[in-house]
């Protein structure tokens, strides 16, 4: 089983440090950029939604494959264009996928891609199907207020499309999962004080950081134990690209050499569930993803939720 291809699409509007400074003159952008690691954010245009970004990413990928060969679609989003019916059904229609294909929404954020990969891989492993799409899409930008110094410097809107195939060299797994609902209030939607009735993103940065600092290193150990591997057996580590301070802390805590630690934040931002697939795509473009590598993937965050796996290329 292996990842056959990846594509992605970012929100149309680019926000540089200058844009944020113009809206918030008291912000020290140099200091913020040092902490976040993000120089350019991508925000959905007024006419863009998570679904439209997902369609673009999906169409780009499917231009290279026979759509009739797709057996399933896992749509990962917390910015659904529709709740009833599942947005996956709309996406299925707009991507012109065959009627035989399954399609469902998976409501997870930062851990969502690895969750989606786990579900799709499990379905393929059952032997009933050969290929599944995992499409992640978020427009957190629609929930973030202009003056939010915690969230605005970090998040970007974007979508990614990954095609998983049962045949071919490589493998995916084992997987580990972790859930802690006590963390739910720390990254959630709340009613805006400035705009009554509007839902806005709220993130308690210190609390979410402490969860990351505590949970991620332990999860890495757990995953490696399950895989019967050690740190030295892993060629590349790819964590959810939350922010620079979070990534730096993880790398130091787990003691990962910088040359094996994938970073993809500066010109992309935190696209929530798409950070891992976008980073994988860029690593592929840079020639870093040759055959025979062991890659550790781990998403973590909103929920709290965490999911990790080993990908053998």
């Amino acid at each position, binding site marked *: 089983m292996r990842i056959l291809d990846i594509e992605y699409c970012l929100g149309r509007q680019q926000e540089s440090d200058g844009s944020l400074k113009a809206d918030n003159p008291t912000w*020290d952008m140099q*200091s*913020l950029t040092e*902490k976040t690691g993000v120089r350019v954010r991508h925000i959905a245009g007024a006419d863009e939604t998570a679904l439209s970004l997902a369609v673009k990413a999906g169409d780009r990928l499917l231009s290279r494959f026979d759509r009739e060969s797709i057996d399933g679609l896992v749509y990962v989003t917390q910015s659904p264009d529709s709740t009833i019916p599942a947005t996956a059904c709309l996406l299925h229609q707009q991507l012109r996928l065959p009627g035989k294909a399954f399609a469902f929404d998976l409501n997870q954020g930062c851990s969502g891609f690895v969750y989606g990969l786990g579900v799709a891989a499990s379905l393929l492993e059952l032997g009933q199907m050969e290929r599944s799409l995992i499409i992640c899409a978020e427009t957190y930008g629609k929930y973030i207020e202009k003056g939010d*110094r*915690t969230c605005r*410097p970090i998040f970007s809107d974007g979508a990614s499309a990954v095609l998983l195939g049962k045949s071919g060299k490589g493998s995916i797994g084992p997987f580990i999962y972790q859930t802690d609902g006590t963390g739910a209030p720390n990254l959630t939607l709340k009613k805006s004080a400035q705009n009554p009735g509007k839902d806005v993103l709220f*993130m*308690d*940065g*210190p*609390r979410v*950081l*402490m969860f990351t*600092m*505590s949970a991620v*290193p332990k999860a890495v150990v757990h995953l490696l134990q399950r895989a019967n591997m050690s740190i030295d057996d892993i060629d590349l580590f790819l964590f959810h690209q939350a922010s620079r*301070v979070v990534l*730096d*802390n993880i790398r*130091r*805590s787990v003691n990962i050499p910088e040359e094996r630690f994938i970073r993809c934040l500066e010109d992309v931002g935190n696209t929530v569930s798409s950070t891992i697939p976008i980073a994988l795509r860029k690593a592929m473009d840079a020639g870093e993803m040759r055959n025979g590598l062991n890659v550790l993937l781990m998403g973590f965050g909103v929920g709290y939720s965490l999911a990790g796996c080993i990908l053998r290329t």
Partner: protein
Amino acid sequence: MDENAVREIITHTLEISDTEPDASQEKQWDSMAHVALLVALDTAFEGKLANVEELQDAYSLENIVAVLRKHGLLS
């Protein structure tokens, strides 16, 4: 690691000069700044602070020192 070292970490990370730093008196010590401070403290304490949850609410030198003493982390 003693209280003076913690004070230095706070003032250096937050780029402030107060000898008794307290978020109620420092406008730039907000949630984002506190994240950077927690990481700086954890680095200085060699990863020993990952499970010291009280630090997420400790927004002054006094409170941070009290938490660290409670966990036996200060000399």
